[in-house]
């Protein structure tokens, strides 16, 4: 399956791409709140349909959007199985040793898996349609009032922006290091805790050293170009067009619907 590095921006031309990043962030938060509060079938169908519409409108290929979920397949299976087998309920369907399968447990597992899937889909949609620079400026703009309580908003947003840009880079590098260590004979799948700890050390130390070396190079390059941390975020006026209003209305409607159901 096609693999997109996490948090990677995909520069297409679409309706979602052209919406102001601040509006996208606010809508994203409203949709996450909807995902958290929903617990009915209708609610999940509404949110899944919204995610589907957003992915179609953003022109992100489905194969790529779903690759993020494919990567988490084992995690999703484990959380479903854990909920299904260990949920305490009075209506047990099958019981064996310490495992109790109940209808409520299975439903709980489905709820948790659906929530993770929906959050992943919305965050993929946000990061694939908004460049890290736009995202930082949006954060700076939204957090602007915090500067009155002496919080260095500009610096914090710069940190978040660099962190988002580093995620795909470090992620690829971690994968390479893991493959290299496996080729050198590291046995990450060992069942013995001590062996597992030793092998993990071979994974953690190179990842950290390589990441910190990158940080060192970037800081040096920034300082050489005369970078000084900006503590006062620039003021940007927000002109709302029909697209932005539509985004607000859809997100608010989905959120309101989840509260009412």
């Amino acid at each position, binding site marked *: 399956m096609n693999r997109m590095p996490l948090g990677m921006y995909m520069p297409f031309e679409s309706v979602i791409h052209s919406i102001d990043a601040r509006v996208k962030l606010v809508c994203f938060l409203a949709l996450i709140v909807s995902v958290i509060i929903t617990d009915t079938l209708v609610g999940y169908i509404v949110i899944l349909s919204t995610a589907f519409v957003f992915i179609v409108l953003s022109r992100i290929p489905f194969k790529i959007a779903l690759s993020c979920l494919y990567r988490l397949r084992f995690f999703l299976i484990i959380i479903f199985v854990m909920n299904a087998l260990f949920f305490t309920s009075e209506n047990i369907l099958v019981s064996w040793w310490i495992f109790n399968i109940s209808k409520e447990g299975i439903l709980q597992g489905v709820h948790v898996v659906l929530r993770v899937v929906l959050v992943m889909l919305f965050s993929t949609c946000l990061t694939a349609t908004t460049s890290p620079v736009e995202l930082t400026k949006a954060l700076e703009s939204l957090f602007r009032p915090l500067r009155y309580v002496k919080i260095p908003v500009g*610096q914090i947003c710069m*940190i978040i922006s660099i962190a988002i840009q580093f995620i795909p880079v470090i992620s690829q590098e971690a994968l390479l290091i893991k493959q290299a260590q496996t080729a050198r004979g590291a046995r990450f799948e060992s069942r013995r805790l001590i062996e597992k700890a030793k092998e993990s050390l071979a994974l953690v130390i190179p990842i950290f050293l390589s990441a910190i070396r990158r940080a060192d190079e970037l800081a040096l390059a920034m300082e050489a170009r005369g970078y000084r941390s900006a503590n006062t975020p620039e003021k940007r006026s927000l002109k709302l067009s029909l697209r932005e209003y539509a985004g607000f209305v859809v997100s608010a409607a989905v959120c309101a619907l989840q509260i009412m159901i």
Partner: protein
Amino acid sequence: MTTTKKSVLTAVFIALCVVLPMAFHSIQNAGSIFLPMHIPVLLCGLICGWQYGFITGIVGPVLSSLFTGMPPMAYLPSMIVELSVYGLVTGLMMKFVHTKNLYADLYISLISALITGRIVAGIARALIFARGSYSMAAWATSYFVTGLPGIIIQLAIIPTLIFAIQKARLIPARYTK
């Protein structure tokens, strides 16, 4: 260390909060054994200072939850409290504790942070996030019994990492001979 370098290092530690748990989750049970998200936060507090450690403790789990769905939203608030206290306390302890021995400073800071973070997170859970359904036994089990291998491994890995980073001259030495 300059403010720019501290900021970029903090960004890298936040990115590691997202990447490390992903690298570990493909290894069976490694997430709950090694507590991989704790390592970058503790390191950030130790290397960059309390402000940066505190920011990493807040932003790291939030970004990880948004990008990978881990930790799940339900556990996110208590995890933010725990990790931000780790970052804050390690930074403060490194600022005020000077025994003239790097390892002694590191262990004093780490142990104080690991204990304070767990106590504060337990109090936050008991009073805010799981009010009425949280007991002393549940706190001790979840923070000390289940995570014991993680605590031991963190105490072994983090000083080694700091030493390796200092040896590679990526951060200034704390004590010059």
